[in-house]
């Protein structure tokens, strides 16, 4: 009993030490408690090492013990997993429906309903062309943008975010950014990323809308400086041409382009043309 008490005290001291050290080092409270719980688990393990021997069980007593033990394991695993942060499927449900668009499973050999998709693409293409013509005509939509470090000249106009039709296009672009989860690898406006892919705030200062679209369509077409390994390994998935329509890619490219120069302090690596 004395040994067990000693171990409990040691466990508390270690747990407390970890808690305060973590606090002093700037860990958020959730980590302080996590470290404390690791010490608690360690204490339980060391208490179990000294637990007195148990006589082998048999008969109905053994059967009952096994059943109780199963119950404990079931509750332990089920409840343990439930205590961890849970992903909300509602976040995904709407997203998936949008990604899959209006296509419904008809012929399994043509799951995307190619005819409907082509028709929709044509309509969107016409809309994009119409928008581009209107933007050119307006002229004021072309904002002069900074070109740091010998950047390629901007050859395409940036649609005015305030305009109704331009706004639609930008809205579609932003929606695609969310739906395709580009933020998992790329940082934009200070959100997302984690250095898996280049920050994209100023991509519009280097590439035209058409070039950005080309990069989305064929990830091997451009390589960002400093991301040689990622480019060689083909880290950017080569699937967007299959899951996005041409218009959706244009919308995303236009939306990305619209941020050019808005935050010049962000360093977007220079893209190098590869194809």
């Amino acid at each position: 009993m004395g040994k067990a008490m000693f171990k409990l005290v040691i466990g508390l001291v270690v747990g407390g030490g970890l808690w305060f050290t973590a606090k002093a080092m700037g860990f958020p409270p959730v980590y302080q408690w996590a470290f404390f719980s690791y010490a608690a688990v360690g204490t339980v393990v060391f208490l179990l090492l000294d637990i007195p021997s148990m006589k082998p069980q048999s008969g109905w007593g053994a059967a009952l013990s096994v059943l109780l033990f199963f119950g404990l394991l079931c509750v332990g695993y089920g409840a343990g997993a439930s205590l961890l942060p849970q992903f909300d499927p509602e976040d995904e449900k709407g997203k998936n429906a949008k990604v899959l668009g209006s296509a419904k499973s008809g012929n399994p050999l043509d799951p995307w309903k190619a005819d409907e998709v082509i028709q929709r693409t044509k309509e969107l293409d016409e809309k994009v062309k119409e928008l581009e013509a209107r933007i050119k005509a307006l002229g004021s939509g072309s904002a002069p943008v900074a070109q740091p470090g010998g950047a390629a000249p901007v050859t395409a106009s940036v649609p005015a975010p305030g305009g109704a039709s331009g706004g639609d296009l930008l809205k579609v672009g932003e929606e695609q950014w969310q739906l395709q989860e580009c933020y998992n690898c790329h940082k934009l406006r200070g959100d997302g990323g984690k250095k898996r892919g280049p920050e994209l705030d100023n991509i519009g200062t280097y590439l035209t809308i058409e070039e950005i679209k080309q990069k989305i369509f064929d990830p091997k077409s451009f390589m960002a400086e400093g991301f040689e390994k990622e480019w060689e390994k083909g880290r950017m998935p080569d699937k967007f041409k299959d899951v996005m329509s041409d218009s959706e890619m244009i919308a995303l490219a236009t939306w990305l382009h619209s941020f050019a120069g808005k935050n010049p302090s962000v360093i977007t690596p220079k893209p190098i043309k590869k194809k």
Partner: protein
Amino acid sequence: MRHLVTFVAFLALCVTGAASVYAQTPGSPSVEFPYTGNRAAVWIVAQFHTLLGAFILGAPIFVVMAEWLGYRKQDLRYDRMAKEVTKITVILFSLTALTGGLFIFVLLATYPQFTTWFINQFYLVFAVIYPLMFILGTMALYAYFYTWDAWKGEKKGRHIALGVLLNLLCLATMFAINGPTSFMNTPVKEEGISPMEALAAATLWDKIANASWMPMNIHRIDGNIAFGGFVVGLIAAYMHMGAKNQEERAYYDWMGFAGNLIAVGAMLLQPFTGLLLAYQMCDYDFSFCQYMMVEQLSMFFEMQGAVVGLMFLGCNYYVWLSLRRIQGVEQVRMTVLAPIVMVLFPPVAIWGLTTYWIPEPMSLAILIPLALAPFILGRFIPGTVSVHTVMKIGFLMVVVSDAIWLTPNGFAATEARMLDDLKLPESWDFLGKMPTKLGAIFSLVFATTINYILYGKAIRQGTIAWGKIDGISQFVLIFLAFTSIWAMGLMGAVRSLLRKFFHTYNLIPDFTAESFTPTLSYSAWLITGITVVFFIVVSVAVFVALRPVELKGREPEGSPVPAGTK
């Protein structure tokens, strides 16, 4: 039993036969499973079939190894264990076939269009190769079981050869079905052309030998051996509790030891073969990596860390309890370098892997000499420590390593919902990265390996009193079996969910309302339910196969006689 099997088969055919007729009608709606929904219905049947399949593929490897060891060592216990496990395998073999059929029928009923398309893609596998291999495997298993007593003594080698043939057939069966399974995650693709065009140009072999096929084969072979071993441990625990005399207790104590030893040997490789599979998938499409490690499935991996950590603690605790029945264990000592390296392992491994991440070989050039240091340099260093001291440090390092593994980048289910007060401080964010996690896994494996080497040394140097094992150890064996089944269910769910809203990734979308990532909580309770059902089935099989032998008493003429004892 035969009537029961026939009745279940009949019911399955009645229920699913109608569904399969439905499936042939173009545009016909799929059935709606009440209570569970279609996805969970497929999940339950598929997981149950996979668990049974894992056992019937893993057990023969285990059985032949045991039979061969018994033959080599002239130890009758190995032979008896092998035969008892084969008896249970025979029962579970037929259940695997039944659930396999049920799986296809449920798929046809719930996802008729996709299933028809999928079967068409692998027509030769589903209609010819897989059934043929299964039939040949069944014939080999029955022949193996029924020739056990006839092919003893000088004919034992012939019987072992038959067991090897059975294993080859089982492996071929698994390789064949892993083709379509892995294809759903990583179908053929070609740069510059659409997935459908790539598929149209692909041969059957291209579809089977897809990017994740071989890593999955390796992971499953290793996993099935571990799984088979843990289930043998479970059987031994049941029988140990039901033993009527000391002789039986001694035998089932030994059986638990042998099953656990083989399981742990295979389990030590599991994290690495699993990593190879994950690495290959990330290489195929990097968005898999995000989905697994930082997005929707990140907490599934947190749970995996907890479960695997518990398994490592469990198998080390079994050794600790086992030492209590070894006389003379106090005299067993080990070089002081072993615990020193155990303590050094996590920081060195994390530094090495962070600096030289895979596939740079330099990290191995650091880790391999470090791991071998106690064995090579230990003999030149005079200091030694007792077995209990080494093991206590081992336990400490297992807890520390698992704590490192468990420390997430942030306590949020997705990066999108990550608030600043939920994530690691920037200077400590290496704790949440893959090199750190792999370093922690290496440390867990190293500490456990040292403990098991020490256990072997204690068995050789001391006197082991079979049957006198601590009663708690039998619960540890049950815990290990339960946890390994649960972990398998969890990782199986992860692999399947990786396809996101596709039946076959990037090729055939899933338009149903259930096409979303479920919560970890929902998945965990479902996996727990499946594990319980599997446990009930195995328990019934153990009771049916082994209990009557206990009641009647073992007949001497049925006992196997290895060569040289005649």
